[in-house]
């Protein structure tokens, strides 16, 4: 069995020069906290805004 989540979240803004750029992350936007193939349990954080 599988669960598919699809949700809308803020993209965030482009980082300023001082903030630098981190792949896949934009300040104020959605960031993942998981990796592919990672085992997760109920209640563990998948990502945050």
């Amino acid at each position, binding site marked *: *069995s599988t669960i598919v989540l699809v949700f809308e979240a803020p993209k965030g803004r482009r980082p300023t020069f001082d903030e630098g750029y981190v792949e896949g992350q934009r300040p104020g936007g959605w960031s993942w906290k998981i990796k592919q*193939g990672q085992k*997760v349990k109920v*209640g563990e954080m998948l990502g945050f*805004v």
Partner: protein
Amino acid sequence: LNAALKSTKIEWKPIPIGLGIGFLGLFQFYRVQQREQRIQEEERSSYGSGPDGGKPKKRERIRPSGPWQVQIMSTLPLKALSRIWGRFNELEIPYYLRVPGFKLYSFIFGVNLSEVAEPDLHTYPNLASFFYRTLKPGSRPIDPSPNAIVSPADGKVIQFGIIDNGEVEQVKGVTYSLDALLGSVRPKSSNGSIPTSNIASSPNSAQPSGSRARTGDEEIIRADEEFAQINGISYTLPNLFSSPQPKGNEPGEMPVDQSTSPRASSEAEVRADLALAESSRSWWAPTPSKDPTALYYCVIYLAPGDYHRFHSPASWVVESRRHFAGELYSVSPYLQRTLPGLFTLNERVVLLGRWRWGFFSFTPVGATNVGSIVVNFDRELRTNSLNTDTAADRAAEEAAKRGELYSGFSEATYENASSVLGGHALKRGEEMGGFQLG
């Protein structure tokens, strides 16, 4: 003859399971062949006779393309096998075999028995009830961050990312459309075309957002326009953003986002309005679409030994449910790699709603061994049922008679009279339902 009948000893022997499965496979193959032949004959005989050039058709069986394993699997009566599997697992296990049986199952599939709510394994009469076990309170702490989405189930993260142009990536290079997974969100428009990605653009589907802007900059502009509509502000976009836009960036300078770039002074007023609206907004209300948003997805696979109940990943309101009575292929990582669009073929329950940041959907997808999806707040939902299959066939037939395209799902909306939320509200970590054997 009399003597032969009386003196012949009758010896009963069980039919081997393999023989039974083989027989069912052959029978199904024969049935499908017959049906295909019948449909072809009907089409041939009625060609050009009706207004649409043919007779109304029944719901077509899904015929996936793929390697030989997939082809063989597609000939098997998977739903019937799943139901038989479910019945088999509901048989009561003898009292003294329960503990060694469940311990063996736990050893094979890696179940942590110290977490199980009921320590006495004798209390589970069969494998189905052990499979749908509950856990001890506090064994799954919920992450306290209010801006986080938490895992709805125990499992393995198969895929996650951002949805680009309404397409979800199943594995690297294999994608399926969001409409195929969730169903088309809006009814047919007046010109007959179905808008395919309105949920991707609009956080509140009730807002007339028109076609989706493709680039990020266009999205921001559209978002501003919607914000103006929401707040009843009379000015239009050209008036609002009449100041000249920066033409380009100097060498070595970071690209500047339009949402943060200096604009006309009226933009400051809009921002002030937005801040005011933000401060007075309830947590469940859709976000003013000033902030550019995107659609994200995450696929979690539950292995046979995992805890098979699912919980709410966020605080959200479920507005409607769509039940797709599809097939029941296995959803193992191997088949996910080999069968394109697997999640769009299988039987699934799509729960649609909204959360703080806009659109939210939760889709449990069934499999051969766990075909029954239970949603605690939806007592009318019946999955992996012969009745729903028949009802889907009938709906497809009626839609064809009306000359319409069968949407492929049955829909129900949740209306709670005592709530102002307009749906069923769920808290983060609240149990929503689960998967049951068969």
